[in-house]
């Protein structure tokens, strides 16, 4: 049985070669540290993170290759991808804004910020801007609970996030 890329997905053949390298590197890293315990699914989360970091999403066409490389079933790979909020199987915006919607930020008005994003910019959690520059996601705690409302643009954390900061950020990602 071959785990080779089927070629029907959105990942082009040269990228599929890159995907194979990423999968192999993460499997090797897991075995290197975990030894006998580092087999099978042990490398799955690092594999999925690395693929998403490289391509922006996990191409479902890669699932057979991931499953074969890890010696697990395609259903197990699919099950893990669908369980975790972080993983996505379709391309998203170039950048991701995570808006904290948890209690500490509720206490400082995150709902007002979410409403502003929806009313002024047409963005609800899960939406991507029509130009593909930004995807909005709800987050449940970014660890900046004394400076709420908190948000994070890719890896850049923001505190006391207000309407003006939202507008400036939207302008920044669109430029």
């Amino acid at each position, binding site marked *: 049985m071959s785990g080779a890329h089927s070629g029907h997905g959105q990942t082009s053949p040269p990228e599929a070669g890159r995907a194979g390298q990423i999968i192999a590197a993460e499997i090797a890293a897991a075995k290197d*540290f*975990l*030894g006998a*315990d580092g087999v*099978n*699914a*042990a*490398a*799955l*989360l*690092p594999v*999925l*993170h690395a693929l998403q970091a490289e391509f922006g999403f996990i191409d479902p066409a890669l699932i057979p290759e991931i499953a074969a490389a*890890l010696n*697990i079933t395609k259903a*197990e790979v699919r*099950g*893990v991808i669908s*369980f*975790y*909020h*972080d*993983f996505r199987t379709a391309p998203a915006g170039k950048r991701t804004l*995570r808006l*904290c919607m*948890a*209690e*500490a*930020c*509720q*206490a*400082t008005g995150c709902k007002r910020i979410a409403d502003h994003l929806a009313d002024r910019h047409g963005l609800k959690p899960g939406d991507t801007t029509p130009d593909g520059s930004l995807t909005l996601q709800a*987050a*449940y*705690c*970014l*660890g*900046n*609970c*004394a*400076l*709420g409302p*908190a948000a*994070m643009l890719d*890896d*850049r*954390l*923001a*505190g*006391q996030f207000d309407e003006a900061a939202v507008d400036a950020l939207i302008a920044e990602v669109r430029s």
Partner: protein
Amino acid sequence: MSAIRVFVPCDAAALSAGADAVAAAIAVEAASRGLDAAIVRNGSRGMFWLEPLVEVEMPDGRIAYGPVKVSDVPGLFEAGFLDGKAHDLLLGPAEEIDFLKRQQRLTFARIGVTDPLSFDDYRDHGGMAGFEKARAMKSGAIVEKITASGLRGRGGAGFPAGIKWRTVMEADALQKYIVCNADEGDSGTYADRMVMEGDPFMLIEGMAIAGIATGATKGVVYIRSEYPHAIAAMQKAIVIARDNGLLGAHFDMIVRVGAGAYICGEETSLLESIEGKRGQVRAKPPLPAHSGLFGRPTIINNVLTLAAAPWILTHGGKAYAEYGMGRSLGTMPLQLAGNIKRGGLFETAFGMTLREIVEDIGGGTASGRPVHAVQVGGPLGAYFPAGMLDTPLDYEAMLEAGGMLGHGGIVVFDDTVDMAAQARFAFEFCAIESCGKCTPCRIGSTRGVETIDKIVAGISPEANAMLIEDLCTVMTDGSLCALGGLTPMPVRSALKHFPGDFGQGAKRAAAE
């Protein structure tokens, strides 16, 4: 003459307030004035309303200025802040700031003081002493010290750490693991993040001590993906720790990154996640101490639990147990959050009341409106009304008051909060984050949202309030883990203490 050291925090919260830009502006301004200033990126002191908090090293201590904006930088130079001179933002000696001075910092002693990735700083400020002592001790003696300290799991459950460590020590296995739970998902908490960003070697040392004590040679720290700065700091610190002999053949560790699932903070889900599976809760027994990661005996402890171990080994279990009250011994890093005037990290011995911490230390709400509700212990913790603020913050007293201390998060709400909406959110959050394994949590959470909506809409409010009570009982008694089991805590406390927010039916039901 050597350069004057200027400290600008690299903690993620400080960065969110603009610390990087301030550090850059100070460097540019110093260069343009021909002044010799060396900028050190320290952790945060945890006084977030003062971030970016800039400190200048003087012969007799550090002088603090804050919160500093980029536009303040030329003025600070003009005023002579490199000589500790007066300025509108001058706060005086850092250690004398009331919020810091009133703490008992054991775990957080170095955080905000040192450069988190300088191993020399770490050694100079007491690091490695616990590890070196542990290496010269028999494993039973190390566990004995942890037991004598009275240290209980700081993740929320409060299970005695010594018992967990002893169980793993006594287990007979070729491979054992130390797993650090850094999946700090509770809203209102950030102490784990601050430890990893501000003093990562302390956590590594704690894990290495646990390894020596139990014969575990490998460790994994599982960090949530929402914490990119903590992930980067831990990864760099692990490499440096290997170069300095803290990690090596005796004990080595890696970072694993979560993927946005709150449930993975539950210890067995976390183990499943490291194993590459869906983060579904395991039934217990077997306990992880007997059969944990990959079926091996495993210590799984929260960041703060493991980070307390170096201090305990250095100063002794009895010294640690001298702090605190009753069966809650040692110190607890409390985290003030939400609508609070002075939000931040406050480490203190157990036993301070909620009122002291919220009103006196925290200064009440940031909005200036009355404190209406305080949620303690994360999204699964109870909402306390203003009338119950005299409850002491220790494990037993919080339990008695119908709440829990959890991971020490304290989220303050003013009187604009709608407690019916908060109760609804508790169910909604449980529905979003349920792993789906057990029915009370998976289905009960959704039925809870629907039933709260009916009460608020005035549809058979009394019957539906009773239904909520019944549902809460089923979830509490029938759920496999704390997510389903404790979601009723915020719901019931909201219904009990704030019936007015739920309309007339709930009011009458609460009165019965």
